[in-house]
Structures are given as structure tokens and as C-alpha cells.
């Protein structure tokens, strides 16, 4: 596998300009002769499809849901970063770049991150022009807040629904292109395979979720914008349909998968309350600005929080990290919550929760002030848990939230399969080992609105593509492989469900294995154990999963089974990746690699690289490749929040 990042020459600030200048273009009149497939209609996919169509390309857009507006991006709450420096508080493109690189614990590519910071300002202008109702100051200018521990206020937001509003903006742009005929929209389609012809991605195979039809779609380039794979853990804050399928199938066709073990675990989620639970709900991180995190000092203390006196409470974050206190970064907060619960100090029925207490803030600022700030979050919490945070402390616990890993891409966001691009959360490019709050929305829109069209023009301008059709052997083969796999999934169903397992039962088993062994804190022993236990779950799945119904109809169990089958395969490189990365960095904590006082210890000597996995075949061990990272504009420093 050849990993050429194709980072443009020149000083950091000039790379993007140089690149755009040296890239080939496609003349406007010729663009309509080219076609692009965009899979996914989240921020990345919708913005890319709309932009490419505006420029004149023929676009086919795909999503699983019944409408492009429902992609998982819709759920993002907090906001989107941009280096506008509207607040005049010392922000700049370089600072956003630096914060992002540092936040990612120096495991991302400088040039990509710098470009992200550069185009961030254009994103805001674009979204404002579309009519996204960002929060405003009384004077009518755009409002900002500080987010995720940043020292400047650079986060733009639309109430607690920033992702929704940004996505509706992109959905509007996409809808306009659908209306104009430039985009053909395929909803309720699940991509099952990438079709590679003569070494280039030339199309996809999809299953029509409504009819079960296996369809081929041909194009000159294929862009994946299929989101993250957090659902490998079964429980996560991701939407139910979020999956690794598209990325995994691309991987099996030869695309490298980078840093699969880098998973962000968000500290403030509503705890699990029962084994029936289907997903976890995020509570905005902003709550930590005023809430104090604590657990009882005594193990197994079953008293109500109000009955536990001050001196029997352990405000562990404030004690351990006096300067950052409750505002330590996500990974540190998450790990410490887990540690407290592992020590038996967790609270609530399951003892897998810690308190987030607003009593002091209410005393200090008054009920009204606190309610004004967090009222809608409190109401959301109360709806779910039936408990009012104004009266008793909230209970929170970490949950899987975002996956930094993804398909390996070069500076142009192209995978190592020519003609196959990956944008948004499904690539690995910008967040290194940890993502800053409010940066995923920024990246999705940067990729879709401002980067991908340049890449596509260059690719089409420099390569001569033959005409292909769905009658080509590669397309026929791909359809056959997909059909065979579905048949294999359904083969157990003959003979009824007796002695078999449902899809969710096995998914929960996989989730538990991953959460326990490849979750917040990892060690060699557990990871090796997981690697050993994984094949048995996989075997159980293929031998005993029971899927009711047929393929030629709406069959939601079959959809889930297909996704789980891919998660089961994918889990292996996740574990292997965690195992081979012997250092702690960002969200990835290896218990073997810690400082004396149990803080994460990065090892730049041995691990300053991107780990890229190559698929070697069904029975073969995956191959590890390395893209070394070099830092010319920043000096990697050890994080310390003490």
C-alpha cells in the first residue's frame, strides 16, 4: 500500500493557495460530462453534493434515512468553531490550527489542519448567507461562546441545535440542486460495496431498503461521507443507523483504514439505566462550566445525595486538577469518572454514574440565572430521567461519542484507491487522537463546501477515465458478492428462531467486549483477551443469528444484521490498532504508558505516526502501515492539566 499524503510544498500558510493554483481544473462546459456519487447527506455529504452540482457536475446522492435532512449531523448541539476573531480576544487562523493540533495530541497532519482553520471563516459566511439563524448579539452581530476548554470565544451556535441548523442549510442547498436537476437523490439506500474498475473507484452497489433491490450506480468519482463508527460499542451517542459499513467495504476493496482505535468518549452523558437501553444521550459539555463533579468518599454509599455532608464528598476533578478543575478535557474527565466508578464510588442504581451538582452555582448566581443558561438542557434531562437538576444533582457518565479514526486520505481527501474520496467523520484527517468540541461540524463543512470540489477537479483533470457501465464484470461481481452475503445472513432463518440469537443480542455482546477491553483505558492483557474472544462472537453471529423475514421487502432486522456483520470484522483492526499503539495519546490511554501520577504519557519517539491498516484477506492478519508525522510549525508538548 502506497501512502503518499501529497502535502503541497511551501510554507504552511501558503500550501492551500499553492495547491489550488497548481491543481488542474475542469472547464465549466465540460463538468456536466462528469458524474460524482456522494454517499451520505450529513454536513459533509450534503454540502459536497450541493457544491459539486452547483459547479456543473452530475451528482448522485445517497442516504439511509427517508430524507437527506435526517443524517446524524442533525443531532450536534454545541456549536461550530471558526477563526473569525469577532470577539477580538486574540484568536487567529494559527491559533485555531494550534489548538486543533494540540487538542489532537499531535497525531494529525499539520497541512490538513491548517487548511481547516483557514477555510473555517468562509464556512460561517456561507451558512449565514443560507439563512442559518445563528445566535446574535443585541446589536445584530454574530454571537460566540467559548467551548470545550478553549481560551477564546470562537464557537458559533444556534441555540442548542447548531448541527440541525447547519444541516438544514446544507439540505436546503442540496434540495435546490435536486430541484434544478443537478442532483439525483436516492433516499433509503444503503451502500453495500464500492466498485473498483481498473484500480479506480467507479461506482457503488446499494440495497434499496424499501424493496430489497440490489442496484448498481456508476460514476467517475465516488465520495464517501458516511459518518463515524461509534456504534461498534452498541451504546453510543450516535444515531441508530450510524455504521461502518460503507467505510469497511471500501477498506476491503483496498482503502487504508487509519487510527481505528481513536474513539472519543464524552464525559457528560445520561447514564445507562437498564439493559433495554438502545442509545445514550449527550448532555452538552457547557454544563461543566457551572456544575461540580463529585462522588461520595465512601464506597457503595447508598444515601441520597442531599444526605451526604460536604466533607464526605469527593470533588475528585477539583482535587486532582486544581487549575482546570471541572473543565479538564473530555478524555481526562471521562477517564476519571470511570476510575471513580471502578473504585466502587459510583452512584445511582447501576453505580455507573457520578454527580454533576449545580447547588453551589444556584447559591451563587440564583435559580433564575442558572435556569436561563441551562434550562433547556435541564428539561431534556428531566424528560428522560424524571429528575430535576435544579433540585438534585444530575447524574452523568461517559459515553462513546465520536470516532477520530477513519479512512486514510491524502491532502486532497482521496483514499489510496484513486477516485475514492472520504470526507467528514468517515475520514481520519484532522482531529488526530482527540477532537476539540465544535470542530467536527467545522470539518464536515470545510470538506464538503470548500475542499472536495478542488480535489475532484484535479483528479478529473489529470486522469483519463474510460466509459464504464453497470454491465461490466466488476459491477456484476460486486452485486453477486452483496447478494451472496445477504443470502448467507438469512440462511439461519430456516427452521425458526429456537436456539438462535437476535441481531441486538449479539451486538450487545460485541459492544460489551469493546467497551470493557477497548474503551476508555486500555491495556495489553485486555486487548489480547478481546482479540481472542472476538472470533467466537463472530462465529456465533454467522452460525446462530436469526433474522426474520425476507430480503425483497422492508426488513429492519436484516439491515441491522448487515451493519453488525461489518462491525464484527472491523472490531478486529480496532483492537489491533489499540494494541500496537503502545503509547497513550489523546483519547487513547494505554495503562502501560502513564506518568508516575497516572497521567497519559505520549511517546513521540516511537509513535509519532498515523497507523494505517490494510485488508489482507478473510483469513489473513491485517497489515499495518505507517505514515510518519512531522511537525515543522509547532513543537509537540506534553499535555498537563494539573
Amino acid at each position, binding site marked *: 500500500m502506497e501512502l503518499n499524503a501529497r502535502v503541497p510544498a511551501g510554507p504552511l500558510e501558503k500550501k492551500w493557495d499553492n495547491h489550488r493554483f497548481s491543481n488542474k481544473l475542469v472547464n465549466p462546459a465540460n463538468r456536466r460530462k462528469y458524474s460524482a456519487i456522494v454517499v451520505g447527506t450529513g454536513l459533509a455529504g450534503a454540502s459536497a453534493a450541493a457544491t459539486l452540482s452547483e459547479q456543473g457536475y452530475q451528482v448522485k446522492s445517497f442516504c439511509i434515512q427517508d*430524507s437527506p435532512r435526517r443524517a446524524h449531523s442533525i443531532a450536534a448541539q454545541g456549536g461550530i468553531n471558526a477563526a473569525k476573531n469577532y470577539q477580538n480576544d486574540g484568536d487567529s487562523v494559527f491559533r485555531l490550527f494550534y489548538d486543533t493540533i494540540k487538542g489532537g495530541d499531535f497525531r494529525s497532519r499539520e497541512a490538513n489542519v491548517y487548511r481547516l482553520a483557514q477555510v473555517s471563516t468562509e464556512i460561517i459566511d456561507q451558512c449565514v*448567507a443560507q439563512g442559518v439563524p445563528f445566535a446574535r448579539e443585541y446589536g445584530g452581530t454574530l454571537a460566540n461562546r467559548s467551548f470545550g476548554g478553549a481560551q477564546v470565544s470562537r464557537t458559533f451556535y444556534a441555540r442548542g441545535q447548531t448541527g440541525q441548523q447547519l444541516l*438544514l442549510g446544507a439540505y436546503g442547498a442540496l434540495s435546490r440542486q435536486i430541484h434544478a436537476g443537478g442532483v439525483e437523490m436516492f433516499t433509503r439506500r444503503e451502500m453495500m460495496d464500492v466498485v473498483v474498475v481498473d484500480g479506480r473507484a467507479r461506482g457503488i452497489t446499494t440495497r434499496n431498503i424499501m424493496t430489497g433491490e440490489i442496484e448498481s450506480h456508476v460514476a467517475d468519482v465516488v465520495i464517501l461521507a458516511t459518518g463515524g463508527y461509534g456504534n461498534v460499542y452498541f451504546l453510543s451517542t450516535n444515531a441508530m443507523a450510524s455504521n461502518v459499513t460503507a467505510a469497511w467495504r471500501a477498506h476491503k476493496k483496498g482503502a487504508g483504514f487509519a487510527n481505528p482505535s481513536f474513539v472519543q468518549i464524552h464525559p457528560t452523558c445520561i447514564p445507562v439505566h437498564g439493559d433495554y*437501553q*438502545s442509545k445514550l444521550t449527550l448532555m452538552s459539555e457547557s454544563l461543566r462550566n457551572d456544575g461540580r463533579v463529585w462522588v461520595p468518599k465512601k464506597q457503595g454509599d447508598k444515601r441520597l445525595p442531599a444526605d451526604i455532608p460536604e466533607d464526605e464528598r469527593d470533588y475528585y476533578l477539583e482535587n486532582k486538577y486544581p487549575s482546570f478543575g471541572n473543565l479538564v478535557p473530555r478524555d481526562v474527565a471521562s477517564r476519571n469518572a470511570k476510575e471513580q466508578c471502578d473504585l466502587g464510588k459510583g452512584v445511582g442504581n447501576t453505580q455507573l454514574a457520578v454527580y454533576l451538582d449545580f447547588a453551589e452555582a444556584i447559591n451563587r448566581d440564583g435559580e433564575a440565572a442558572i435556569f436561563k443558561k441551562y434550562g433547556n438542557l435541564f428539561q431534556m434531562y428531566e424528560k428522560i430521567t424524571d429528575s430535576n437538576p435544579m433540585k438534585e444533582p444530575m447524574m452523568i457518565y461517559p459515553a462513546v461519542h465520536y470516532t477520530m479514526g477513519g479512512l486514510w486520505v491524502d491532502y486532497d481527501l482521496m483514499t489510496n484507491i484513486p477516485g475514492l474520496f472520504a470526507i467528514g467523520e468517515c475520514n481520519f484527517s484532522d482531529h488526530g487522537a482527540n477532537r476539540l468540541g465544535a470542530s467536527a461540524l467545522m470539518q464536515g463543512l470545510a470538506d464538503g463546501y470548500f475542499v472536495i470540489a478542488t480535489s475532484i477537479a484535479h483528479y478529473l483533470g489529470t486522469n483519463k477515465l474510460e466509459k464504464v457501465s453497470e454491465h461490466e464484470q466488476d459491477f456484476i461481481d460486486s452485486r453477486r458478492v452483496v447478494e451472496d452475503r445477504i443470502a448467507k445472513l438469512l440462511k439461519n432463518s430456516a427452521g425458526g428462531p429456537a436456539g438462535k440469537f437476535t441481531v441486538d443480542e449479539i451486538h450487545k455482546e460485541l459492544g460489551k467486549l469493546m467497551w470493557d477491553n477497548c474503551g476508555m483505558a486500555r491495556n495489553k492483557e485486555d486487548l489480547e483477551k478481546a482479540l481472542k474472544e472476538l472470533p467466537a462472537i463472530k462465529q456465533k453471529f454467522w452460525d446462530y443469528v436469526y433474522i*426474520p423475514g425476507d430480503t425483497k421487502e422492508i426488513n429492519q432486522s436484516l439491515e441491522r444484521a448487515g451493519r453488525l456483520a461489518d462491525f464484527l470484522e472491523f472490531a478486529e483492526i480496532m483492537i489491533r490498532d489499540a494494541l500496537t499503539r503502545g503509547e497513550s495519546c489523546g483519547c487513547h490511554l494505554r495503562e502501560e504508558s502513564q506518568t508516575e501520577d497516572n497521567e497519559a504519557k505520549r511517546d513521540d519517539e516511537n509513535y509519532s505516526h498515523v497507523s494505517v491498516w490494510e485488508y489482507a484477506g478473510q483469513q489473513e492478519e491485517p497489515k499495518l502501515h505507517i505514515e510518519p508525522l512531522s511537525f515543522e510549525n509547532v513543537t509537540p508538548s506534553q499535555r498537563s492539566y494539573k
Partner: protein
Amino acid sequence: MSSINLTLKIWRQQNSDALGQLETYTLDAIHTDMSFLEMLDVLNEKLTKEGQDPVAFDHDCREGICGMCGAIIDGVAHGPEKEVTLCQLHMRHFKDGDTIVIEPFRSRAYPVKRDLLIDRSALDRIIQSGGYVSVNTGGTVDGNSIPIPSQQSELAMDAAACIGCGACVASCPNGAAMLFTSAKVSQLALLPQGQVERKQRALAMVEQMDKEGFGNCTNAKECEAVCPKGISIRNIARLNKEYLFAAMTEG
């Protein structure tokens, strides 16, 4: 935490052509902390284990924001709680021994595809007909060069909060899509960015809405009462005004 026993009567329909009917199921020991959809998950696991077809229903985010879930619960869209989607409705709002009737959202423009799963693409087509500001990517002015009074922007945000679940249509005695359409028209009519195409947008979206077979509004207010995002019928008044003005001066 307590648990309750329930009888469910659920609309079952193989596909759009098949005739459907209510089927009765019983479920025991449902935790009251469960969401409504988790309760349906439990039912589906049970049905699967018994070799029966699970109930098809749409859902995705389970946080009340994607707008994918929804059903008629005992005659009310998204169930008895105010301003929640079905995925955010919790079982503590039901009592032990309750019988719950669950039917799909219906309207002339919403064919039932299977069980509780329907086709709402008509709503997408309304947006496609004009529910956006026609700007291409790039070349836009600086965000702060369009000052917008914060009150105005908040009003626009109130309307923009619509999640496109379509409960308004399902609950409207006439199957009208006025609340949905008016939310988008209002958002953009309230913002300076929306002014250029203001009239064209109102005309085109209403025309599309009529073409899709949605009913006529009789100001029955049911839409507002079930809307999980509290979209106000003030938006419908605004749409009426926008449309009247546009129709009299444009086209």
C-alpha cells in the same frame, strides 16, 4: 424504577398494497424509565424470538431531533406528552394495565409502506420547490455584514426548529401541511437573506404543497398542539399573509 404490564394494539400492514389491521400483543414488566421506542424494541425482540415479524417503524437519532420517528398513540400524534417526539416519550406516562393503540401517521400524501413506517417524501418535495436561499458555495459576504436584530433572529429560529416529522399533517383533521410549510417560509421571510426570493418562495411552496395532495387548513390548531417542537400557528398566519401578498403582486 417500577415496571408495568401493557396491552398493545398495533397497526400491522405487509406493504402499501396489502390490507392492514390492528394486532394485539401483551408485554409484561416494562420499565417505566424506558422510552416508547425502547418498549417497541422489547416487543420486537420478543416477536423475533417467537418467530413472528417484528414491527417496522422509523427512527434514528432517538433524541428528538432527526424527525424520523412518530406514530399515532391512542389517537394522538407522538403520544400524550406535550412537545416530545415519540422517541422522547417515556413509559412512566402510562399506567399498569393500559391498552395502547399504535397507528401509523396517515394522510393522503403519506402512503403506509409497512406497519408504522410511512413515506413522507412529499415534505422533502415542498422544500425542494423553494425552501432555501439560492446562494452558491463561495463568494458570500462576511457574516457580520448582515446585522440581524437578535429578536428577529430568535423568531426565525423558533420557526427553523421544525424537525420535519410530519406530525402536524398526521394530526390535522384535513391532512394539511400548513404548519410544516409555514415554518420554512416564515424562517426565511423573517431574515434579510430570505428577502430576494420571498415572494417566489411562498408561491412555489404553496403550489407544491397543494400538488402533493395535502388538505386545506381550517385553522383547527391540532398541528400546533401536537408539534414536538412547539412550532406556533402564528407561522401559518404569516404564510397566509406572505402568500396573499405574493400572489397579488407577483407572477
